[in-house]
């Protein structure tokens, strides 16, 4: 019961999606299942928020080292949630002024928009931008042109970096007509449309075959690891 029904649910849901693709009569079934899937995905965000609260409330109540940061997380979470769910400071939609809740939750100028624009967006962009340093640092430590493969990787990355910035044409723009194909931007374009396309194409074919086979294994109940250890 605890394992058989989930297997059946996965099988039915998956095959409905496949059947909906081939039989026009069942297209609406697929559409409905997709909407259910979207609803569950949205509820999964609630699960994520609930789990975040659970973890940080426990850290706070146990007063583990650094619990003050958990308090900050909880406060930030609750403020954003209350403002967003309550549509605080949001005007009604101009078309329906008598409906106070009809406005868009992310209306420009609202507190939710303010928190997104001046807190969430800069923090997200800066955290992602820091990866530039880590990628460069990791590359400096790990990349050594010891063999042909490493040389090919490094040379391609170098040419792409040159060719897709102003530095490439500035440095190689003077090449004579006979070897103009070696100018950084043209070489980059050739590398991208030929060698990169060939490699990517093979990788995508491999991924597609792998995805299809794993999906079939899951739908047919051969692969069951998503059900957990079965101890409970």
């Amino acid at each position, binding site marked *: 019961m605890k394992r058989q029904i989930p297997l059946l649910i*996965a099988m039915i849901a998956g095959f409905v999606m496949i059947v909906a693709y081939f039989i026009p009569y069942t297209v609406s079934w697929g559409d409905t299942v997709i909407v259910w899937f979207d609803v569950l995905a949205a509820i*999964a965000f609630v699960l994520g928020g609930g789990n975040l609260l659970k973890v940080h409330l426990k850290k706070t109540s146990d007063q583990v080292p650094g619990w003050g940061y958990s308090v900050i997380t909880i406060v930030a979470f609750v403020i954003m949630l209350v403002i967003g769910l309550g549509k605080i400071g949001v005007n009604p939609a101009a078309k329906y*002024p008598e409906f106070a809740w009809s406005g868009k939750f992310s209306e420009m100028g609202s507190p939710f928009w303010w928190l997104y624009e001046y807190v969430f967006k800069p923090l997200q962009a800066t955290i992602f931008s820091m990866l530039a340093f880590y990628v460069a640092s990791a590359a400096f430590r790990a990349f050594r042109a010891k063999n042909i493969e490493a040389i090919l990787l490094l040379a391609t990355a170098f040419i792409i970096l040159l060719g897709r910035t102003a530095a490439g044409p500035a440095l190689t723009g003077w090449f004579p007509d006979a070897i103009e194909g070696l100018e950084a931007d043209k070489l980059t374009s050739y590398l991208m449309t030929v060698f990169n396309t060939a490699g990517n194409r093979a990788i995508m074919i491999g991924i597609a075959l792998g995805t299809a086979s794993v999906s079939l294994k899951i739908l047919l109940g051969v692969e069951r690891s998503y059900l957990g250890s079965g101890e409970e």
Partner: protein
Amino acid sequence: MNKSNRLWVILFIIGAVLVAGRMLISQSLIGKAYVQAVPVNADEENEDHKWTLYEQSSQTKFNEAVLEDPNQTKYLFSFSRTIGVWIAALLTIFVLSFLIRDNPLYKFAESIFIGISAAYWMVVGFWSTVVPNLFGKLSPDMVRDWAMPGLGIDERVELMYIVPLVLGLMLLWILSPKGGWISRWPTAFIIGVFCGLRLITFIHADFLSQIRNGIAPLWMVDSSGSFDFWESLRNVFLIIGVLSCLVYFFFSFEHKGIIGKTAKLGIWFMMITFGAAFGYTVMGRIALLAIRLEFLFDDWLWLIDPTGKRLEAVISMLGLF
């Protein structure tokens, strides 16, 4: 106070002094936000149905409007958005401080980010999906009267949407200390739908379309009908590249002899692909970093002026524009 904390305090004081000095030099130009008031008259007869929206504007427009009419109310200085610019700048610096090493300011910014982002996606999921696609199906009249007056009048109650509601509640059961197996049902549903969807889309969009695009003529002719050497060579490289990479992925035979050499060629093609991907990743991240630095040095401190908007603002302030 230990040596490390002393260093941080000194750095903080130096930063604050530099920003204060910058403010003194150009007090009216750094880190300020301006808005344009846009009145909304949703209902001419009802005063309660009139309000004002504030759209982003520029200091230049504000200065021009003030020069024209000192009592104008269309363009305004926005205190809340100015505070926002300063908070965004400080949080950006807090995060970047991690490049020196882990520190309380970074942890503070990180904690805020975790809380805010979790709540943000919850709110987006609630208003964009749960309300229209779940509540709107189960109780369209209630949702129409509450948050979505534009919901079609012919929308009927669809009781089968109780299924995702129940599955959703079962999914939340995972937070409970007991009965964790209950969440397997919705998990199985999510995995099943995802597998069915991916199976079709990957076979259709990746597998078949890549093979279709990979079948290209090796003998190319140009518009005048003569042999096009470079286009032909390009297609030859493409086909050899795809086939050799696929041979590398083929593990049913030992990679020896001709198969080994072909697989080796495939590795070279893939190394070029990985090199290109690496180059683009680095460029993408550097572009993000450049945007953050531009925000700090242009929007906040005005130490640079790449678009000339600050100079424009100064000129408009002097009444010379």
